[in-house]
């Protein structure tokens, strides 16, 4: 037995190195691996909160009609009721948070309407389409149609 351990100094040295290595690994791992890693799976759980913290740019239609009740009433029940306000008026999250910070620009009716209603063979056949060349050329669509409820009587 004694003969087996007669050169044990070498063994102690190697064992010490191993122990130091293991301690170093454990310490480094504790420092380097984020606290939330593995919370839900093999990824950083905190990343969910990071993505969630992105700013909201489009306020959503519910926020618009909170203040613009009159336009909201007009829009309700009309054929354009499915369209969110910001689809035409642009992203207005800032305006919803603080109305004075950003003043919405009135959209150009002609280009905006044609963006959806110009004829295109790939569009569903039942979707209302016009050929801009023979339908009120150059005129403003809003002269005849109410943009908020095109199927209702035009607003006086």
């Amino acid at each position: 037995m004694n003969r087996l351990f007669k050169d044990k100094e070498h063994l102690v040295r190697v064992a010490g190195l191993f122990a130091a290595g293991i301690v170093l690994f454990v310490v480094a791992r504790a420092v380097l691996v984020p606290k939330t890693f593995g919370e839900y799976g093999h990824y950083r759980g905190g990343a969910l909160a990071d993505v969630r913290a992105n700013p909201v740019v489009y306020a959503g239609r519910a926020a618009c009609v909170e203040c613009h009740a009159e336009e909201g009433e007009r829009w309700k029940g009309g054929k354009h009721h499915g369209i969110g306000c910001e689809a035409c008026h642009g992203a207005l999250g800032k305006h919803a948070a603080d109305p004075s910070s950003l003043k919405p620009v009135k959209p150009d009716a002609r280009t905006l309407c044609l963006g959806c209603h110009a004829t295109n063979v790939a569009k569903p056949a039942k979707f209302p389409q016009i050929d801009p060349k023979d339908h009120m050329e150059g005129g403003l669509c809003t002269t005849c149609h109410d943009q908020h409820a095109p199927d209702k009587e035009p607003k006086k």
Partner: protein
Amino acid sequence: MSQDRREFLATAGRVLILTAPAAAYWDALAEGKTEPEEAAYRMADHFWGMIVDIDKCIGCGSCVRACKTENNVPLEPFYFRTWVERYHVEPLSEHPEVDSPNGGYGGFPEKYAPGDKAKSFFVPKLCNQCAHSPCTQVCPVGATFESPDGAVLVDKTYCLGCRYCVQACPYGCRFIDPRTNTVDKCNLCYHRITKGLTTACCENCPTGARQLVDLKDPRDPVHEFLRTHRVHVLKPQMATGSKVFYNALDGSVR
């Protein structure tokens, strides 16, 4: 005092069950709150997906523009989290003609003559939010993952930009953001849907062709829709568990 085993187990069980709420309540009290704060958003209550109705899409590009604005996607060069394709399929042809000028950002100028005996339609594309996603499986560092509520997200601070996931996605939904050199993709507007809003593309779709759905919400109209419509996912043979359901999808769409 005598106590039989059944009685002892029942009491112990009750004590054990009560421990967790009591501990939570104690923590809340220690932090100075009288009532434990009600979590506004619980991941366990949601499982997100989307319905895309080809019969309703008019190719206006509202979704593409809205997505770029909401998520600060580079405008040019043209990278997309969502884009719209136009298919033009001649009868009995195996090769549909597909185009997507600037991803549909500015709509689709008329290109085909009416009555050319081919069928034409628009197909909006986005990340399919796969439940068994190939892209998350190849990430070497855990920078992309399926969240417990069913969104496939990217951890930008972890991404190395190695591009494995870009190659792994069978739908071509990922790109490398040239500004950060990390990967980017549709995250189903995770910052919006966790606040009770819908995604930017659904908010701005004028025809309701795209609808955000919560598959875990029993009141969501998606269940009725999936029962009454013949829906399809893209590349079902790849078994990705895609949660973007297409209605009226043509077989030529890849």
